[in-house]
């Protein structure tokens, strides 16, 4: 057992650092620093740079476009991108439906969809939750009825992240009403431009348009766009949820987040000293670092297990719970650090609005981000559900 990087790993680290320094878009950096909402083009700009370099999907098998990196190299990659504060790549194609397609898809599905995910040509969204089916996802009621070579899909999905940008969506639909809940569900890939699809925005507490309602009315979906067997979609769903949970720990991003909080607390004053010298504040930052270290090494142990051939299992629920709690505590500390300037509501730069926002730049999104990040203990299976999973699957209760 050891945790040192080999000379090859250190060289790789240098290569990655240099690549990011040379290629990360300056315009994107500026928008991030100002706390502006990012457009579809912003998200895709970094995606396309990585695609061109061949580094867009380190986690994928080489045959489908992966990098062939060792787990250590992948770890270095995620560390370095977070350290450089690169934006998070949209997970819906790369981390969610992509792995489902290369694991369960037909040769035709793989050949058509995987390259378009890698290139960024298709933007994906996730059609899972419904108004009546959140934690109890398997109770979903959107139906797909066979009509020759097509399914006719009817129903309503919700919390569909960035569906306003999406070209394609992966949907869980009920194909057998009489089967037991989990056994009558299928996994469909749906063209978001299909007639009968309506996307309506949901505005969240920070004022963002991030999630949507998606209404499906007699939407015709080719049977060829079903992944895996009919009524076996829950298998894909479970596979995907476990994958979603590992990424959700967000260790590297939280490390970067702690550095940001420290930087704010070195700038903010508390009397004649920086806020970071305030013993109460310093203690909370330190506790957060300790908890993040515990999360990091728990994740590394889990990754090592995955390297040994075990897929991500129920222990990924632990990563999701602790990772999301840490992300939320970071936003609490940030909001505390900015003091009075957490209150002004910054609505972004409108057309021709050049007036500088109120308060320091780092304060603009402190409160909206705090409000918004309450989602992390709710989405991807709420933390209550994750605890149920651990109780049942890990502890055998």
């Amino acid at each position, binding site marked *: 057992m050891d945790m040192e990087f080999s000379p090859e790993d250190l060289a790789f680290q240098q290569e990655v650092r240099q690549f990011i320094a040379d290629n990360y878009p300056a315009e994107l950096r500026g928008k991030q620093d100002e706390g502006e909402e990012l457009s579809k083009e912003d998200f895709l700009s970094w995606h396309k740079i990585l695609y061109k370099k061949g580094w867009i999907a380190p986690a994928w098998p080489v045959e489908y476009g992966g990098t062939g990196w060792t787990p250590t190299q992948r770890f270095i990659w995620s560390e370095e991108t977070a350290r450089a504060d690169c934006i998070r790549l949209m997970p819906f194609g790369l981390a969610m439906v992509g792995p489902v397609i290369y694991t369960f898809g037909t040769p035709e599905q793989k050949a058509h969809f995987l390259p378009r995910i890698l290139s960024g040509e298709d933007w994906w969204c996730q059609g899972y939750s419904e108004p009546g089916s959140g934690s109890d996802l398997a109770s979903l009621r959107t139906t797909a009825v066979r009509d020759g070579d097509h399914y006719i899909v009817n129903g309503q999905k*919700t919390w569909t992240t960035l569906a306003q940008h999406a070209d394609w969506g992966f949907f869980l639909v009920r194909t057998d009403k009489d089967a037991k809940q989990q056994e009558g569900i299928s996994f469909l890939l749906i063209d978001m431009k299909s007639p009968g699809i309506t996307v309506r925005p949901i505005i*969240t*507490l920070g004022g963002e348009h991030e999630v949507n309602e998606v209404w499906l009315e007699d939407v015709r979906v080719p049977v060829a766009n079903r992944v895996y067997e009919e009524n076996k979609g829950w298998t894909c769903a479970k596979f995907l949820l476990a994958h979603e949970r590992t990424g959700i720990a967000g260790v590297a991003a939280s490390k970067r987040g702690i550095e940001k909080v420290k930087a704010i607390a070195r700038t903010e004053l508390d009397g004649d000293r920086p806020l970071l010298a305030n013993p109460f504040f310093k203690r909370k930052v330190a506790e957060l670092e300790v908890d993040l270290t515990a999360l990091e090494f728990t994740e590394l142990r889990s990754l090592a297990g995955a390297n040994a051939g075990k897929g991500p299992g129920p222990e990924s629920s632990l990563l999701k719970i602790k990772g999301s709690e840490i992300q939320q505590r970071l936003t609490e500390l940030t909001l505390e650090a900015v003091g009075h300037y957490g*209150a*002004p509501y910054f609505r972004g730069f409108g057309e021709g609005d050049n007036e500088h926002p109120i308060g320091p730049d780092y304060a603009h999104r402190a409160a909206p981000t*705090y409000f918004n990040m309450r*989602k992390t203990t709710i989405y991807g299976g709420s933390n209550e559900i994750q605890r149920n999973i651990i109780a049942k699957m890990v502890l055998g209760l």
Partner: protein
Amino acid sequence: MDFTYTETQDMIRDTLARFLADTYDFESRQKFINNGQGRDAAIWTALAQELGMLGAPFAEEHGGLGGGALENAIVMEELGKVIAIEPYLPTVVIAGGALKAVGGAQADAVIPEIIAGNAIVAFAYAEPQGRYDLANLKTSARKDGAAYVLNGHKSVVYAAPWATHLLVTARSGGGQRDRDGVSLFLIDAKLPGIVRRDYPTVDGNRASEIYFENVAIPGDALLGSEGGALPLIEQIVDEATVAVCAEATGVMQKLHEGTLEYTQQRKQFGVPIAKFQVLQHRMVDMFMEVEQARSMTIMATLKLGLPANERMAAVSAAKNKVSRGARFVGQNAIQTHGGIGITQELAIGHYFKRATMIEGQFGTADYHMDRYERITLAD
């Protein structure tokens, strides 16, 4: 010992609650916020002239109802229950409190205007560098004959866009963080040289950055003694802090009630989610925080008249407990609602936003724990 309210106090609560039930449902509040001005001025006028509510803590000789801090707490709690955006705190509690404390001609002139609903006062005390330290002031009041000249920048002044008057803390002597040399002024909000940048706040209120650029103010704008106003400012901010605790109690109660209601309607796995023990215990914990917030608010309200150190310890104990409780209740109300709690559509998220801003108002839990320790655990 008696923790019952008087008939008059019950009447104040009932009258106000009825009025707010008729005028201030969630949809109405959202309309007020989004109507351009950020409020409906008719509500303030009605509170003053139909209900006499703005006179709650003032003496009868000024036209008030003869109450004090308890009456303020009652009003603030009811306003909290509807997350009202009315400027009762800066106008009645803070400016009213300062005027009551100094008395004399200034009180005789302005208190009746507050009671009548004609005067709205914003409290310009915070500065970019000062955090929660009331003495950390760069804003200066330079003596010029019998008058003063004001220069400086005040941060996040709630209700300033609507204000007829500003209550301003400024340094008339001493160094930036000295206890001595702090003065308090009540000035006309429209004086030449006052520049405002107005904006909405994340909790639905309106506020301003205020810049004083060689603002000439008359000598009689001074409240209390020149250079010796810090104890007075500390006292009125303590009164304001307790009033905010009372508001928080109302906000937290509604967060808790809304959660109870939602969990009994929302079904998952075939049953109302309120049947799950993990959520039951969570809601019990929320309930206990609401009750303790109410207890601490009453405790601190009753101790506002004690000598400064005892008063400050009581207020800091209350604000520490209430800030922590507001966070717990707010976060768990959202968590228990799930995704719908994070949308603008439901009232619950707006209560959460106000609860979050209350956490830091006049000092975070940490700030007040520190002040409490310094007073009670000093050698």
